[in-house]
């Protein structure tokens, strides 16, 4: 009996289930819907740029679209994405446990997520129009604008609660529920990455929580904590916002790196190179990543000393990321590489993340930053990290674990076609943005000057390819759900614990608690590396 067919198929057996696997799938379903809504909004924004002037929508609508695109993508897809879906589903299985430490709390997190999502949707259709501040909710505009900022901010607050509870649950699970013999250094690297991520979630999410509460209080009571006329300081808002929102970038990317660290050894038939380095670099990223926030504020007028310090720390945080990239590459060396769709996406992740990371280091340089700040370069950079990085890793993880989660195989050919479309479209869209930004095209502008027009057309054409690829990818999954052939227990030849149980997994995961005697990627026992 698998977890999918117990208790019949009634809706209640899903939405009241404390089974970590069912909760993972609930997140996946809701997130996919929101992801496509936000993709649609992104395509609409690109369509607007088919013309430099008034076209398709008003400037106010355009402002609302980029705000809503950002809020949905960040708070409802990229931040919760890998931990909530694959973390929930696989964390207990990967460490040989039957569930997370607090199953009911896990269900509560899911309900906070649903509530946050509902509030976000509500903010679009009530009050005086959808928020138009950008996802960063910068003061003073977020306090003065008449649009529905309060509700959107409340939505982000509730989603933060969901994120905190998931993190708290994961840390406790990893500390308490590892199977016998599952020592810290035998844990799969995805678990290590979830551990590092969970600490960031627990420690920094409350800061955005209180900051968002302050925005709401300011909107209702006009206290003036960010208003210079009343003795407050608007820069404090930016500091408090980025104290969370920069580490949040690592909440997004670190689990993605963890998933990649699972996929590459499996399809190279080889133990991972530098296990300890990859494990501890996740912790290092969590640590250093919490101390670089003000590199978002180099042009804000804060002290020069602060500029120097944050610039230096920004360069340092690139080191652990680079360690991972080198180790993944070294893992491939002399491996028996199988170019499955999951592996193709994983390798694309490494390539795209490298571009995203290196452009990030360039922005960390103070002189260059002044030129690049608030341009399409920034938009290109963070899409390389968030989408080329986390997004592609999410697809890789889905391609890798889909047979295990659903018990069905998807067709390989459409998956390859989807990769070709997304990878090509992605680079046409976002590399063009890097170029546009370096030439001076400001971000979030409704109109653009004639000299930028050709590049805008190229980028828009890229967005079509990318969208077509995403539709191909996900329709392939949906077809597989209904018509895919049954998946074997171990279709890829993986050796972590999830491949030792049937597909889909039984309700209790393991008939008897497994005893672990070796590291997670022991493909070639007796031979080093």
């Amino acid at each position: 009996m698998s977890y999918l067919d117990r208790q019949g198929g009634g809706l209640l057996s899903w939405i009241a289930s404390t089974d970590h696997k069912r909760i993972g799938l609930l997140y996946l379903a809701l997130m996919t819907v929101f992801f496509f809504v936000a993709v649609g909004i992104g395509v609409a924004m690109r369509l607007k740029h088919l013309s430099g002037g008034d076209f398709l929508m008003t400037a106010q609508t355009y402002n609302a679209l980029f705000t809503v695109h950002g809020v949905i993508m960040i708070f409802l897809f990229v931040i919760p994405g890998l931990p909530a879906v694959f973390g929930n589903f696989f964390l207990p299985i990967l460490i040989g446990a039957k569930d997370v430490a607090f199953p009911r709390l896990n269900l509560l997190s899911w309900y906070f997520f649903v509530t946050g999502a509902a509030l976000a949707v509500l903010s679009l259709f009530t009050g005086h129009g959808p928020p138009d501040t950008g996802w960063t909710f910068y003061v003073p505009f977020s306090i003065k604008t008449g649009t529905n900022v309060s509700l959107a901010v409340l939505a982000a607050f509730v989603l933060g609660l969901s994120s905190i509870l998931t993190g708290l649950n994961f840390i406790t699970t990893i500390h308490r529920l590892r199977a016998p013999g599952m020592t810290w250094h035998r844990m799969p690297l995805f678990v290590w990455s979830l551990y590092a991520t969970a600490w960031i979630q627990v420690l920094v999410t409350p800061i955005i929580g209180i900051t968002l509460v302050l925005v709401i209080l300011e909107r209702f009571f006009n206290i003036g904590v960010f208003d210079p006329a009343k003795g407050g300081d608007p820069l404090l808002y930016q500091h408090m916002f980025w104290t969370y929102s920069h580490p949040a970038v690592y909440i997004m990317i670190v689990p993605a790196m963890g998933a990649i660290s699972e996929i590459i050894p499996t399809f190279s038939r080889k133990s991972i190179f530098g296990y300890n380095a990859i494990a501890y670099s996740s912790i290092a990223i969590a640590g250093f990543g919490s101390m670089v926030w003000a590199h978002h504020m180099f042009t804000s007028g804060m002290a020069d000393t602060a500029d120097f310090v944050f610039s230096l720390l920004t360069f340092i945080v690139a080191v652990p990321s680079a360690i991972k990239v080198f180790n993944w590459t070294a893992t491939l060396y002399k491996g028996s590489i199988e170019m499955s769709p999951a592996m193709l996406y994983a390798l694309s992740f490494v390539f795209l993340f490298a571009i995203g990371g290196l452009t990030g280091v360039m922005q960390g340089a103070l002189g260059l930053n002044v030129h690049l700040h608030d341009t399409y370069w920034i938009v290109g950079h963070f899409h390389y990290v968030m989408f080329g990085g986390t997004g592609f890793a999410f697809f890789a993880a889905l391609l890798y674990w889909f047979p295990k989660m659903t018990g069905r195989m998807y067709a390989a050919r459409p998956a390859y076609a989807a990769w070709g479309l997304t990878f090509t479209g992605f680079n046409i869209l976002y590399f063009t943005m890097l170029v546009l930004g370096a030439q001076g095209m400001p971000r979030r502008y409704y109109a653009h000057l004639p000299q930028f027009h050709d590049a805008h057309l190229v980028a828009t054409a890229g967005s079509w390819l990318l969208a077509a690829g995403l539709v191909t990818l996900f329709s392939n999954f949906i077809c597989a759900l209904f018509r895919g052939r049954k998946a074997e227990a171990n279709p890829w030849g993986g050796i972590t614990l999830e491949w030792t149980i049937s597909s889909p997994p039984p309700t209790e995961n393991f008939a008897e608690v497994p005893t672990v005697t070796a590291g997670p990627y022991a493909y070639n026992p007796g031979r080093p590396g």
Partner: protein
Amino acid sequence: MSETVHHDYQGAKIGMWLFLFTEFMLFGGLFILYAGSRALNPEAFHSAGRELSVPLGVANTVILLTSSLFVAAAITAIQKGNKKLSLILTGLTAACGALFLVNKAAEWGMKFHHGIYPNGPGLAQRPAGEALFFGLYYIMTGLHGLHVLAGTVLLTVMAVLVSRERVRQDDYVLLENSGLYWHLVDVIWIFLLPLFYLAA
């Protein structure tokens, strides 16, 4: 599947401590805000701080510290199997929480009476930083007050659970975690007292 989980005391306490970390960070954001605001308006904070009643603030401190003692003793009592004593001490802790809130409400009420609230008449003629001081005072003691309220409710529930023996000598982690939460409420107040009442 959850039987084993329910009895993982260590796990329950790890979970509680992680939750307390999030609470510290939540208030931490406000302490940063306070530090930044005070650095910008040192004189206004000094003069506004003189208007808060030190005796009332100290009284509330004594109340909270005593209640922390009560809850710690309540946990020891249940460990030793003395249900009745534990029940009394848990009840006393909750009562202290309620007393704190009454005191706080009276204090806020007096300030409101003098027009000292955001954009109130009592602040209209004063320098900008003083209004900010009282704004922060309301935000931070308000958030703390909500935590006291939550803790008081929590401890009342605990008293009921102790009397029904859902919390007992061999299963008292709920009371222990509630005690941890109550200590957090206490510790936050220990920082609020000097920042506002002794700011002058």
